[in-house]
């Protein structure tokens, strides 16, 4: 478990710094230094691990909040007053945990709402307003704005921006029956029938090509593929807030770097390697690319 407490910069900055070092090493006099680049790649790997762990922790927290909100919605009709209190408690937990790692929660939010990200709970009147909205859109995946809506002012929910969020839940499968236009959600093995296929369509805009298929697994497959891609969406959103200090790297340089990294160290030592290594590198580049996974796409995004 990497101890990140002593580090002044976060994982993302380390990733960009490391990539810059690797890029610069290509033009250094004397050729690529294998030892130094190997060490830089270790830092890159560690930073990526931490970054991914943070991301998954976020997702998990989001998922928990979503479940809480679903519970809130379900008991809403019983007693509005009770609901508000419950919600406050629940969101208090959620927001409480948000307070602990404000950067993660704040990072998920739209830039314009960064400022009030970590606030004390608003009075109950503010809390009830967005909940009224929620009853109409119960089938919609809760967006990050909901996460905060009980904490601060009401935020007008937008429809399609956060569609990939819906797909973060690997244990949730959503099926649209094209004949009956009924949306069914399979969550943790339980079936819920949702409403409003039209809304669902909006939410899952990213999956539209797959909708044409009637079979369930068509959705499922596209959902899984969507999972890694949430990162670029998120990254684009909070890029401004997180990295004010990071200089944007040239896109062409980044794609070059990815091609270096895609072929592993063969890319780094391609100038020094024997002929047979060049062949090995090409042979394995696909494999290496697959193993690089989400963080490679994250780099592409910025």
């Amino acid at each position: 478990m990497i101890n990140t407490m002593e580090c002044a910069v976060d994982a993302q900055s380390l990733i960009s710094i490391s990539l810059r070092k690797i890029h610069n090493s290509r033009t250094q006099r004397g050729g690529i230094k294998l030892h130094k680049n190997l060490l830089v790649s270790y830092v890159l790997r560690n930073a990526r691990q931490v970054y991914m762990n943070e991301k998954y922790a976020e997702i998990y927290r989001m998922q928990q909040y979503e479940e809480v909100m679903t519970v809130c919605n379900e008991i809403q009709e019983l007693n509005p007053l009770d609901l508000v209190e419950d919600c406050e408690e629940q969101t208090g937990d959620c927001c409480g945990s948000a307070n602990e790692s404000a950067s993660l929660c704040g990072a998920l939010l739209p830039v314009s709402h960064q400022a009030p990200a970590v606030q004390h709970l608003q009075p109950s009147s503010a809390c009830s307003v967005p909940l009224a909205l929620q009853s109409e859109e119960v089938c919609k995946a809760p967006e990050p704005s909901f996460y905060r809506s009980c904490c601060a002012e009401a935020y007008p929910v937008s429809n399609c921006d956060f569609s990939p969020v819906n797909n973060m839940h690997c244990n949730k499968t959503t099926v649209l029956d094209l004949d009956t236009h009924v949306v069914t959600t399979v969550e943790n093995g339980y079936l819920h029938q949702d409403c409003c296929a039209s809304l669902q369509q909006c939410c899952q805009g990213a999956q539209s090509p797959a909708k044409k298929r009637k079979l369930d697994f068509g959705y499922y497959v596209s959902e899984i593929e969507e999972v890694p891609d949430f990162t670029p969406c998120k990254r684009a959103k909070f890029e401004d807030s997180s990295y004010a200090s990071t200089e944007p790297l040239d896109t062409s340089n980044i794609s070059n770097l990815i091609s270096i990294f895609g072929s592993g160290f063969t890319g780094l030592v391609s100038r020094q390697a024997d002929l047979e290594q060049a062949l090995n590198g090409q042979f394995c580049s696909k494999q290496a690319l697959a193993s690089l996974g989400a963080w490679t796409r994250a780099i592409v995004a910025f």
Partner: protein
Amino acid sequence: MDEEIDTRKINNSFLRDHNYATEADIISTVEFNSTGELLATGDKGGRVVVFQREQESKNQPHRRGEYNVYSTFQSHEPEFDYLKSLEIEEKINKIRWLPQQNAAYFLLSTNDKTVKLWKISERDKRPEGYNLKDEEGRIRDPTTITALRVPVLRPMDLMVEATPRRIFSNAHTYHINSISVNSDYETYMSTDDLRINLWNLEITNRSFNIVDIKPANMEELTEVITAAEFHPNQCNTFVYSSSKGSIRLCDMRTSALCDNHSKLFEEPEDPSNRSFFSEIISSISDVKFSHSGRYLMTRDYLTVKVWDINMESKPLETYQVHDYLRSKLCSLYENDCIFDKFECVWNGTDSVLMTGSYNNFFRMFDRNTKRDVTLEASRENSKPRAILKPRKVCVGGKRRKDEISVDSLDFSKKILHTAWHPNENIIAVAATNNLYIFQDKVN
């Protein structure tokens, strides 16, 4: 230990008065020969400067064997590998002396790709009285010669000349980081990131690969070789250190290719200290046998460790060089200082260790008394013949008068290369482009 400074500022740059150092003058290696009479330095510009100790004279007892420039020569030139479109730096990575067998001195010097054997010899006599040419060297008209004479040797001003006797090239794909002369005085080894080659000093067109850690698939590369050295007495034994913090001892008698180690010295990592940079700071930058051959010393970014050859599980002793940098690793990574490769040396009796740090500080650890001292190599803070004052880095909280705080350390002033005279308490410390020589105080 009290120190008396005998400072030498050796600056080959034409611009002697300026404070900046041209990059070519940065000293990249320092090495005493086996008697301590000669001291060689190599720099980034590919030059070697050899100093010789003065004979002690009764007339000037206070000038006890000071070192003067003996010879300077250009060992390596920048080259270009046309096949790979790579420039090969002329920087001298290592110098190792051969034991003296006649009047001439021999040393091995290496850059990233080529090892050269240099012969340094003196010439103090000159033949005079040629028949066919006159004193200025002009050819004489044979018809004017009426008598023959035998040329005689007449004394002349001492001239020291260096000639390359062997050039060992084209054996390394990766950058050479170490050379080590075997105790048999016939062979030596050269080490790059992934391979170690064994050479005969006489034969330049053939070398034998004795260690190869290159994986079949470079994607699987996880560690590189960072340093290697022969055992001081046993000509079949050598060690090499890796970027993962392990040291392997190999016996050349077991097999021709020593990929399988005889001993593996490794200390398990402390999981509580894990950070982004754990791999970098555990990479070993230098490994040295003790003169006795019983112990090994290794240097990683923050510590110096002494290992007993007979105990592989953990080091015998661990010394913190500059642990206050542990919280600064992030910024040291950004400015590339975390990649600095510090060397370490034993004193002649294996009782004291020395290694460098930043701000022109260097540290000594006494293994017996467990005391350590931090000294500074700078002209501003010490006058010639003055005693060196111990320095202290203050780690936060109140800073005392003479202490220096961690944030004021100058990370561009690093001491990577030091050397200790084989018999006496004389040390050579390279601080960027300056060489400092310190001696023990004489009462």
